[in-house]
């Protein structure tokens, strides 16, 4: 049952990245869209994510609940030593989620919209940045449980070149995912713009990816060894690179669905490569100790109950979720009353 729980944890993180991440990306794209086109972009985006956005962000809750029920030491260690970025992440989540709903459910459209829009786009940028920072710090070995001063214990645990580079890389990937998704949603005349955006963001993502390698060298994180030191990570990196080449080739040839699958595949491979490299360790501490998913788990009774709850839950959730995606993909939402 432990492996079922771990599988759901990985699935939750992956889907949050692919679906929730694309939602963040849509806000990031809005941040870098020219004033002239912003209204169009906003409408396209709303039609794409309006009905499904609440569901997309549930994956984070699933992942966090699995952590605190199934792996309490990992949860409490992260909560203590990454308190500050977690609080900043939360502010991003609350600001973004409410601004998105408020701007569509305000009965009067006036200058308040500017406020909502600003909150929405900046928090769309900050939230994945801090998600990346947290993920980067979990494996960078900067968390020092023996630290005796505030800065070492609670600030330098997460504030360093490697985590910031991972944060920027995450932001770029989210934007890239969103641009690819929106190519399929946009009307004919706007498609060009999203293709351009996807191309630019893809280049940005590659640059940020390179930055991650540089930062890893600076901070002494053995990233190269992780990625090329085992067959699965290595294969995943090769596949991600190949799919990148294919994606560049197909971009602008109007293959909405194929592009989405490729972009999703690429991100999945990146997560797989890095995740596999230190599986089952979830947090690497400065002392050299690791918090492993196979060693810090809750007692068997809890893991069994949690596993069954997840399996039963997914029997209800997954079909309903597929039907939701399917229903709102058939026809653009603006053909219907809201």
């Amino acid at each position, binding site marked *: 049952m432990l492996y079922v729980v771990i599988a759901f944890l990985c699935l939750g993180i992956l889907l949050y990245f692919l679906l929730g991440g694309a939602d963040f990306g849509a806000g990031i794209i809005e941040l870098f869209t020219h004033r002239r086109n912003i209204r169009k972009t906003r409408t396209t985006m709303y039609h794409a994510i309006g009905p499904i956005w609440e*569901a997309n962000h549930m994956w984070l809750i699933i992942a*966090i609940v699995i952590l605190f029920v199934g792996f309490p030491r990992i*949860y409490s260690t992260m*909560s203590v030593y990454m308190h500050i970025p*977690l609080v900043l992440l939360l502010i991003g989540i609350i600001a973004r*989620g409410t601004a998105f709903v*408020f701007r569509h459910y305000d*009965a009067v459209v006036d200058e308040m919209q500017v406020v909502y829009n600003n909150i929405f786009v900046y928090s769309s940028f900050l939230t994945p940045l801090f998600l990346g920072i947290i993920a980067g710090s979990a494996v960078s070995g900067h968390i020092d449980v023996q630290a005796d001063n505030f800065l070492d214990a609670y600030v330098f645990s997460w504030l360093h070149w490697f985590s910031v580079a991972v944060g920027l890389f995450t932001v770029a990937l989210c934007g890239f995912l969103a641009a690819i998704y929106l190519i399929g949603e946009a009307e004919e005349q706007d498609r060009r713009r999203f293709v351009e955006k996807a191309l630019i963001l893809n280049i940005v993502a590659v640059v940020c990816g390179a930055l991650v390698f540089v930062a890893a060298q600076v901070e002494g994180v053995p990233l190269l060894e992780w990625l090329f030191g085992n067959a699965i990570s290595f294969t995943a990196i090769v596949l991600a690179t190949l799919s990148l080449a294919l994606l560049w080739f197909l971009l602008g040839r109007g293959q909405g669905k194929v592009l989405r699958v490729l972009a999703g595949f690429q991100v999945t491979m990146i997560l797989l490569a890095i995740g596999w490299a230190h599986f089952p360790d979830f947090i690497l501490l400065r002392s050299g100790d690791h918090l492993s998913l196979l060693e810090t788990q809750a007692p068997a009774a*809890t893991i069994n109950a949690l596993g069954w709850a997840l399996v039963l839950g997914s029997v209800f959730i997954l079909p*309903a979720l597929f039907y939701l995606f399917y229903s709102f993909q058939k026809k653009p939402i603006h053909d219907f009353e809201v």
Partner: protein
Amino acid sequence: MDDLFAARSQMALSLGFHIIYACIGMVMPFFMAVSHYRYLTTHQDVYKRLTKAWSKGVAIFFATGAVSGTMLSFELGLLWPRFMEHAGPIFGMPFSLEGTAFFIEAIALGFFLYGWGRFNPWFHWFTGVVVGVSGLASGILVVAANAWMNSPAGFDYVNGQYLNIDPIKAMFNNAWFTQALHMTLAAFTATGFAVAGLHALMILKKHNVVFHAKAFKIAAIFGAVAAILQPISGDLSAKDVAQRQPAKLAAMEAHFHTEKSAPLVLGGLPDEGKKQVNYAIKIPGMLSFLAHGNFEQEVTGLDKFPKEDQPPVLVTHIAFQIMVGLGSFLMLVSLLYLLALWKKKKWLYSTWLLRLFVLAIPLGFIAIEAGWTVTEVGRQPWILYGIMRTADAVTPMPGIVYSFYLFAGIYFSLSLVVAYLLYRQIKAVPTLYDVTPEPTPVAH
């Protein structure tokens, strides 16, 4: 402000706001579903417009409830990591089920909000009902987790170790049913009265009277039925607390000294130093009866507990008085309203009854906050009753007070925006939801 007090304040603040958003978000879908049902069966257009107007409210409150709930799932660890490290595996079961219920609610809400004219009308209606039912289930599950903190179960505590963990037993602890019942009825009462009161205000102002009268009736019936059932659930809870947490009951009643045929203390100002209650009305033997069903029986007082295990009396007692007082008032209004519906039809159009409902807009929520203060402050100094102290659970990180200020700023500004949005929604009723000219009301 020391770190422990700052952490407690931040948790109280976060839950205090979340409880309001969550109650409205889980109860309003039921109003919406009733109105939608009326539309599907009677084909009166006003019900469709009402359903849509309410669904905007549901969307706003669901979103704020969802993000504030997400924050809480992190804050548990950010503020109380020592507690979560031990408690997570034991009381995690309701949280993992709640994750599922919440997820289903989000999916169903997507179908409902964007599904007009797109699905079979009854399927569309059903998705609205699913929003309500799964929201209610989420609420009950979260309360079950809180009940476990009051009534620890499903593990053996041996030499500081938590052994033989049974998450199912922990979920079905002794307090879960009484607490969940009380909270659910409270949510229906508070939301019913708040919504009915707002519509009553519009009727009094003679704005879109037919539209608001339909809305008023649906919300008022839900609120009234729940408010009348609440005292029964309150009695169950009191007897249960007397059994399980005598110190909490003693603090609620400012019952300092253990005695037989103990009096019920109404109102008053407890003096914790002199161990007496000033300016209170005392009903002899009543506390013994309410707690144990017998006018003679001994009721444990605070003197049976060492000083360091006693909850704060002043706050708990006053909060309890506020909850009971407001609950009783809402029950009386409910009885009047049901009497009006049943026998005295002409009361239904009278301004005094509508004014009572307007007065009651905030009262249910004030009662909820007070009741929640009773259960949380009354459990102190424990975070996990009798096992772990709140002071031992707090995060080692210093400077929590800044985090408290930050969260206070966020919640207050968020609530201001939500109130502003609702105000604009209500003001927009004549232009968005009820544009047809008003027919003259037909006398019955």
